[in-house]
């Protein structure tokens, strides 16, 4: 009887834990991705307009965002995918600082791809299911 109650309690706890895992990590990734995408878009636009100062500001913001969010993201995302994203941010920032706009643009496009991959893994969609 005691063990049945324990099992029932554990099953309820597991259900709640899974529910939390379905909601919180995806919410965290969604807000991170929204913020990162906004910075990437603005940095890309700035590069196209040859506004390197603005591009540098945005890339710096991207690096700061990554530094802030990586420990939490690595708790539920494949570490190599997270590393690919943060290195793309870092490369973009370094390229902007040395004035290599095409390399910076390429790195931002890599970051966008890495971000899409992370979203594809964690955020539920029929495509990611299959």
């Amino acid at each position: 009887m005691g063990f049945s109650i324990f099992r029932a309690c554990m099953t309820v706890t597991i259900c709640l834990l899974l529910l939390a895992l379905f909601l919180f990590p995806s919410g965290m990734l969604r807000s991170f991705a929204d913020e990162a995408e906004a910075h990437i878009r603005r940095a890309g636009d700035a590069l196209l307009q040859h506004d390197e100062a603005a591009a540098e500001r945005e890339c710096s913001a991207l690096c700061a965002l990554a530094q802030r969010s990586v420990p939490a993201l690595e708790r539920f995302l494949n570490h190599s995918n997270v590393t690919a994203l943060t290195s793309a941010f870092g490369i973009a920032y370094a390229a902007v600082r040395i004035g290599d706009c095409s390399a910076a643009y390429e790195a931002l496009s890599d970051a966008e791809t890495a971000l899409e991959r992370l979203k594809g893994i964690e955020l539920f969609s029929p495509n990611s299911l299959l």
Partner: protein
Amino acid sequence: MLTLFLRAVFLDLFVLLILRLTGKRQVSDLQPYDLLMTLVIADLASTAIADTDIPLLYSIVPILALYLVQQVLSKLSLKSAAVRRFLCGTPQVLIENGVMQPRVMRRTNYTVRDLLDSLRSKGIFDVGEVAYAILETNGTVSVLPKDAYAQPVKRDLKLPETPAVPKHIVIHEGRIVTSGLKKLHIDRTRIESILNKHGIAPKNVFFAQMDGSGGLHVQLDDAHHNRVERFHEPG
């Protein structure tokens, strides 16, 4: 390296907890689905143990999902015979009145050799002695011998019947096992006084087992040449 070690310890304890929660017994008692689930859980756990690039949650979430599915299916199969039949199958009669059932054997992929192996492991060397051999859903074969070959029991021999009483461990490696005493509704002074009466100190006992009627089986330790004593101390 410490990370790998700690991940392995954590996942091992986690898998142990999940397997205990599934309430399964030894491997030979598992239904095919339960066995499959156990193997998949082991594989999922080992993936995250070895690869530190993968967060532990990549193993934990699928294991929890399998556990929940298993719990739901267990509950459904308890409630519905149809679900139970679908999940576990139905027992199949392989031998009926000494005659093998080739159609059933083909359907269940059970060869004559397999069947003879199973019969021999149960001490039966002649198919003709078997009234029924049934392939159970967990893959074991239950055998009912024909009446003429069945072992006689006390009732057949008209011997006096004694009530079956379970035995409980009361001393293990010199230590009194209080859980065993509780089941027998006696206290440690009772067991100590029985042993003292026979000149045995509890610390010299390797193993002692007692039943509710006062039957006591005592095996002394190595220093006393593993001597075995049997006493009957009712009351």
